[in-house]
């Protein structure tokens, strides 16, 4: 066949495949917005559920998710950023650093439900935290650790080597060099990773199934040792476990969850692209 024509056909096929990947995003968003928007009201967002979740709002689920995400970040960000600093700034390419890298790859690949099992085994049972916000946050925190380590690592590696050399040559110690000549320039990248981690933790259901989530709990959690509702689990519950929930309530819950997660991701994308454009070196 004429190579020009086969090129045309091939490009058309590739374009079609790309549309197949991207269009569903648009379709899913459109469906959820179209069917869920009517449920969104002040009352829906800021009041307690009533009558076995068939009426009232989803405030405890929203707050529960915020608490969980906050807890996960408090736990995972310092640990993840420091682990990334270890990998980039301290370990040369030795056995230990290879082991750590392999561990991160595998942490990223462990199924989320297995994190749930782990959280159940260690935090709920072994440490005796029970099904609680604390257990759930820690479980989610370990789950998002690889996200945070990987993006912090990329951010640190993108800081040019000579910043370190110059700083050390001026008599700064190793930590001073990291603190003053590396971290400030890696900060936007680290923040991006943090936001991505937030988004991931906010949307996950399986890790919180057995570690924190309450089926129906029409009050707000009082302490970190309380159970709590959470948005993704709530969506699961009202769409599969409880019959007779109005369709727009389900879609409305999905819309709230999706908005939260996508806004976080959008923020990360914007932050990253602005950071890349601003970079002067």
């Amino acid at each position, binding site marked *: 066949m004429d190579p020009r024509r086969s090129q045309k056909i091939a490009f058309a096929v590739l374009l079609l495949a790309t549309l197949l990947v991207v269009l569903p995003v648009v379709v899913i968003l459109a469906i959820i917005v179209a069917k869920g928007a009517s449920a969104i009201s002040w009352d829906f967002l800021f009041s307690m559920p009533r009558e076995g979740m068939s009426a009232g709002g989803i405030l405890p689920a929203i707050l529960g998710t915020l608490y969980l995400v906050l807890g996960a970040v408090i736990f995972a960000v310092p640990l993840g950023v420091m682990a990334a600093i270890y990998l980039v700034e301290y370990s040369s390419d030795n056995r230990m650093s290879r082991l750590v890298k392999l561990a991160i790859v595998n942490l990223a690949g462990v199924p989320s439900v297995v994190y749930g099992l782990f959280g159940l085994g260690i935090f709920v049972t072994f440490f005796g935290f029970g099904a609680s916000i604390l257990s759930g946050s820690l479980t989610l925190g370990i789950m998002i650790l690889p996200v945070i380590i990987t993006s912090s690592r990329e951010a640190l590696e993108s800081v040019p080597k000579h910043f370190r050399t110059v*700083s050390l*040559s*001026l*008599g700064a110690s190793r930590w001073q060099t990291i603190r003053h000549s590396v971290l400030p*320039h890696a900060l936007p990248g680290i923040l991006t990773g943090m936001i991505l981690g937030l988004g991931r933790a906010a949307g996950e259901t399986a890790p919180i199934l057995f570690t924190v989530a309450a089926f129906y709990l029409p009050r707000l959690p009082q302490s970190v040792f309380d159970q709590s509702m959470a948005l993704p689990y709530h969506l699961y519950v009202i769409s599969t476990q409880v019959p007779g929930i109005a369709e727009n309530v389900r879609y409305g819950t999905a819309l709230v969850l999706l908005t939260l997660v996508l806004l976080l991701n959008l923020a990360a994308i914007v932050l990253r692209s602005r950071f890349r454009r601003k970079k002067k070196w």
Partner: protein
Amino acid sequence: MVNPQHKFSVRNFNVHYDHFSALRNLNLEINANEIFTVIGPANSGKTTFLNSLNRLIDLVPASRCSGEILLDGIDIRAGMEVETLRRKVGIVFALPLPLPISIFENVVFGLRMQGVRDLRRLNQAVERSLRESYLWDEVKDRLSTPAMNLSGGQQQRLCTARILAGQPDVLLFDEPTSGLDPISTARIEETLLILKKKYTVVLVTNNVAQAARVGERTAFFLMGEMIEVSETGKMFTTPADTRTGDYITGKFG
């Protein structure tokens, strides 16, 4: 034993990268307040030597050093903290490498790392060191602007001011004019001649004429060995080794 005139004494000094021998059995003295120039072709060990003097060589993961280097009679490895050494022995790199912060912050970076917070002292240090590197008049009105906005020659003088702010003893220059135009080069060379009154200057250059212009004593390095060291004038008129003569006259390099 220790001659007070000798700023640096290098004794039986060797550097290896993995199995590659970068510097072999080096013995030499660098006097206080002289401009000591090092010449030689690429990969002759000049930069390795310079980086050994303030232990930046330690940053190369596979490097190993043996022998000793004394600064004012004190071993730079066993006898002092590496941070102290690097404050006393400042370096200007081949490319102008300002940090992506303001001119002011670039100059006071070393002082801040020492814990100096007194703004008056920092201001004084900035003015003094920028004057010493002949940059003050050009930048005094825009100290808070990014250092990246300066021209290449200005950046290189800023990098000089940056080490002067810490009041070092020795200034190391690693081909500091290799990326600059002739006018900026001339300004840097003038600056070197004035700086040597106060400091000891070690200048690595791949520009033989530059060594002839500013050097007092010159060492010729070739493939990790020092072939000869002597008064610059003597080396350029009657080199002891034919290889030195060949290099100077441009037969190789």
